[in-house]
């Protein structure tokens, strides 16, 4: 079994994993970080998006051993104690969710796209969310949330 060492939300963990273990399974079942959701499990919906070395990836389409040595960020790593990340706060303010299942992937994607392009506009936000599917909201409030979150992240 491959032995891997990863940093997850800043904390280093070393484990042996079955070769078939997906990064999403590793995060949820080994590390018990269940904020990362598995929606479709066919790598289409984006609910499982995490960051790997600063880039968004679908953790259900990545093997855990491919992340050996990598820096992984999950939704649990965003808030500072009781204080929500500005993007999380914006999703709450704009009600950028209904059932909430897609929200971890949406927020992780949104935070990363704003980091890469702080002045991102609405078209950029829509393009940036192409890999994240929401079956409840119709996206309008998500886009409003990302706009507000981007503004807050710019400070």
């Amino acid at each position, binding site marked *: 079994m*491959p032995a891997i060492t990863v940093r997850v939300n800043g904390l280093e963990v070393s484990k042996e994993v*079955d*070769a*078939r273990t*997906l990064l999403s399974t590793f995060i949820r079942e080994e590390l018990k970080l269940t904020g990362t959701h598995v929606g479709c*499990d*066919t*790598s*289409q919906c*984006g609910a499982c*998006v995490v960051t790997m070395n600063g*880039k*968004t*990836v*679908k953790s259900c*389409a*990545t*093997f855990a*051993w*491919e992340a050996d040595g990598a820096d992984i960020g999950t939704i649990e790593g965003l808030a500072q104690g009781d204080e929500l990340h500005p993007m999380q706060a914006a999703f709450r303010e704009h009600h950028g969710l209904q059932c909430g299942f897609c929200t971890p992937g949406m927020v992780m*994607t949104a935070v990363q*796209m704003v980091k890469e392009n702080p002045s991102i506009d609405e078209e950029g936000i829509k*393009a*940036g969310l*192409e*890999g*994240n599917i929401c079956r409840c909201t119709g996206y309008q409030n998500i886009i409003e949330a990302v706009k507000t979150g981007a503004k807050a992240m710019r400070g």
Partner: protein
Amino acid sequence: MYDFQVKTPASVDDVKAAVGDAEDGQFLAGGQTLIPVLKQRLAMPSDLISLGRVDGLSGIQAAGDSITIKAMTTHADVAANGDIKSAIPALAKLAGGIGDPHVRNRGTIGGSVANNDPAADYPAAVLGLGATVVTTEREIDADNFFTGMFETSLKEGELITEIRFPIPEVAGYIKFPNPATRYALVGVMVAKTGNTVRVAVTGAGPSVFRVAEMEQALTGNFSPDSIKDGLVAADDLNNDIHASREYRAHLIGVLARRAVAEASS
């Protein structure tokens, strides 16, 4: 998925050794197609030979008249590369339109080209731009590389190391994306260099193909008006729930005109 052994070679030589040791080895590049395939138990390799840690398989180099993209370069890196954006903007645009941002962060040019999905974008770039596929064993012209649906002229254990694109005078790529998958329902790459025009179509047939009639018409006059309707017969095109073969035949003409217009702008 079925169980497999993991191999993580650090050099191309180690890759060759791993291929030799494996009973039925399979290369893993970005995994954006292969991992879903494994999950569905549609493949049962004895070994996954991961290319993610192979030294020297990633990067983009611009020479005077060509751009060389190493096999493990991601779609996101191709889309964002300054040299490609200025020398072959159609190629940067094509890479930036594959899948979604997360797929583009993992998916690689070598993986896409080796897989030769009939609806993938990169085969249109490789064939339309007349690129050369460089492998561990030889160099293969684009015209001799794509041989059928999910089929290429790669031999067992032969690894793509890089793809060399000659820089055209002008080129344009337009696709009609499937609204769910972003795969090309039809995609057309048009490139002109001197008196040579190449037109490559993806998504419409079992494998990417060139359209000689359009190339001849455009060689005489590189203008959207040169492309008449009906230059591609519907008979051999894909016919599925997403689009009829007649619709795809029509789209080829429409998108080719738009690609010529984009190339000329």
